[in-house]
């Protein structure tokens, strides 16, 4: 946990200038489209478009490499897990069986299973870039107003803002406590025994939990003193109204979703079947 969660990086690009609400809705709608469909043609199109948006946002790989690698490993594990538990799931879906490798026992390798797993992998390629773009091009203060703009009550939206505000604080506190304990002689590396490491981690986690929960009263009191929650509505310092670019964004997102649904009709199901 050496790297921070990815965060906002200020740049002046067309993506940064879009409103947070527009970007959030785009992310939700296109993710929905990618989730619903298993039509490879649409998924590839969305994936290419997602990568193009990354380029447009001027997000460099080194900025996101930690999270990207982590998410990739997670996605690969997921795909492998699906194969392990359903090695011929694809055969059932596509109605044909083209064996590439006879394998061992139930673990054959077929074109159909590979094709299915390919679709799963592309889905990740569709949504991970979009999530990264939204997070890195939207100022954290705009997160809350974005949620409020799309209908989430402002108090809930504000809780989201508070959480985002405190995640880095708690992470930093974790490292501070860890270094303090190591300075007192606690050994956490592989040199230590398992029991020692468990005990060591508890010695970090316990004070982290205590100090996190202790700050609740301070925060709540400060909010009360500033009259939080007194009115049914509130204004937002970081509010950004929807403009032409945002409407184009929403139109594009709706288009993806509609195409996704239409393809279900055309394919007579969620799956595009090249063997039919």
């Amino acid at each position: 946990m050496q790297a921070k969660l990815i965060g906002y990086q200020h740049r002046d690009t067309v993506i940064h200038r879009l409103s947070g609400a527009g970007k959030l809705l785009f992310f939700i709608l296109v993710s929905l489209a990618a989730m619903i469909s298993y039509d490879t043609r649409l998924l590839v199109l969305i994936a290419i478009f997602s990568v193009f948006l990354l380029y447009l946002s001027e997000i460099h790989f080194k900025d996101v490499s930690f999270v990207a690698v982590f998410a990739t490993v997670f996605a690969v594990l997921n795909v492998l897990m699906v194969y392990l538990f359903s090695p011929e799931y694809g055969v059932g879906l596509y109605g044909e069986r083209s064996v590439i490798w006879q394998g061992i026992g139930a673990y054959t390798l077929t074109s159909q299973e590979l094709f299915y797993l390919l679709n799963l992998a592309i889905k990740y390629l569709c949504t991970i870039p979009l999530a990264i773009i939204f997070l890195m091009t939207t100022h954290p203060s705009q997160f809350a107003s974005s949620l409020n703009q799309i209908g989430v009550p402002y108090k809930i939206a504000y809780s989201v803002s508070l959480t985002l505000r405190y995640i880095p604080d708690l992470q930093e506190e974790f490292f501070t406590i860890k270094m303090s304990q190591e300075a007192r002689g606690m050994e956490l590396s592989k040199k230590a025994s398992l029991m020692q490491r468990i005990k060591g981690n508890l010695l970090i986690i316990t004070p982290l939990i205590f100090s996190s929960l202790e700050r609740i009263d301070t925060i709540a009191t400060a909010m009360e003193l500033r009259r939080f929650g007194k009115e049914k509505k509130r204004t937002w310092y970081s509010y950004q109204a929807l403009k032409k670019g945002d409407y184009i964004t929403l139109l594009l997102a709706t288009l993806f979703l509609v195409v996704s649904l239409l393809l279900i009709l055309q394919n007579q199901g969620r799956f595009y079947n090249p063997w039919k």
Partner: protein
Amino acid sequence: MKKAHVYAIPAIGAALIAVLAQISLPIGPVPFTLQNFAIGLIATVFRPREAVLSAGLYLLLGAIGLPVFAGGGAGFQALVGPTAGYLWFYLVYSGLTSSLTNSKSGVVKIFLANLLGDALVFVGGILSLHFLAGMAFEKALVVGVLPFIIPDLGKLLAISFISRPLLQRLKNQAYFTN
């Protein structure tokens, strides 16, 4: 109780879950993360409404793309994929356990309440592995429950023993006084 508590408490709770979920201990073949440890702790220490809001807020953050789920997972797919049941049943876990415990509960009661909540998370896990991943119930049990039982019992014990001193220490805060 201060009105602002209703919104400050879940925020800190969700942040704590998000940070602890990223901590992974290298124990055994199954990844041992503190995600459900954090859920259980929040469920024990908070009241039902704030506990459920904490878990809900955590899921919301994951849904909009923040890499807050264990293993850095994020996005909608985590909430509709084969392991989605575990995540959704965190709401049940936090609601149930927090309604069964209060600031004066003993260690045994805390342990049993968390045991019940955690068992429901496994029910959710089995359901999603069966219906969303097409896995037979027996296989879902073997894959999705059995390997996690011992690590989870360890987490429940840790929750039980950490909660008492934690509640003692927080006694001077208005929210934690009953």
